[in-house]
């Protein structure tokens, strides 16, 4: 059982959404806003690219998000991640269509 999850992002508008709305969710309506997470913290973007088998290294990491604050995962990929784009994969991933709202300090004025 994971204690926390992380989301890795490369899309600038999604970064803006996290910063301004404290909302973590894919912006892709074509798959019902399906949003991928991993329980693994990567400090090295190339390591994230390698184990999650992404076409390019992510630019941002969101998290840790405590497991208790995550909605149920709609899609639980059987680990480990398959190879792609010359990367071996091997990481762990899961997906939910629900948004996660981060703790924030809001200026009411």
């Amino acid at each position: 059982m994971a204690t926390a999850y992380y989301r890795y992002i490369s899309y600038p508008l999604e970064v803006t959404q996290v910063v301004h709305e404290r909302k973590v969710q894919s912006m892709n309506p074509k798959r019902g806003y399906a949003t991928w997470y991993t329980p693994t913290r990567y400090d090295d973007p190339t390591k994230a690219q390698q184990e999650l088998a992404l076409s390019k290294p992510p630019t941002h990491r969101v998290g840790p998000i405590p497991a208790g604050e995550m909605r149920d995962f709609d899609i639980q990929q059987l680990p480990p991640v398959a190879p792609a784009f010359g990367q071996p994969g091997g990481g762990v991933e899961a997906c939910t269509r629900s948004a996660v709202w981060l703790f924030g300090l809001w200026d009411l004025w």
Partner: protein
Amino acid sequence: MNYEELDRILDTVEEVFSSLANQYGYYELKHWSTERWRWDEPVITLTSVGRDDVNRNIHALTIQEGSYPYELLVEINAWQDEDEAEGEIRMRKWQHAKVGRVQIPLDTEQLEGMIRKAYDNVSRWREGKLARKTRLASWAGGPEP
């Protein structure tokens, strides 16, 4: 990102994937499935497990210039995972190759030819051809924040 336009391109590729998998599924594949938009990337993947227990996939990734999709990159992978050191280590034997590129807007005939070439190439990769070897990350409950 123009999700509508990209998704239409992936629709076209999925039709070719489905046709191929239905054609070969009964004889050569134990399981097959398609997936798209993994980690928000404009990619569609056909994954299959052959009767030789080698996992194989074909990826078609849309390449963009700004928000304008102009090319589809097709690539293949095959892999097998196995335990070593009495289950202490999980190793992946794998192979990867780029098959080619198809210009967008897609020419269906050219796309079908490229996907069929990808399928033929990846089908020929048996266990002995999986020359790359990578130790898989261990995970037991996730890391500390």
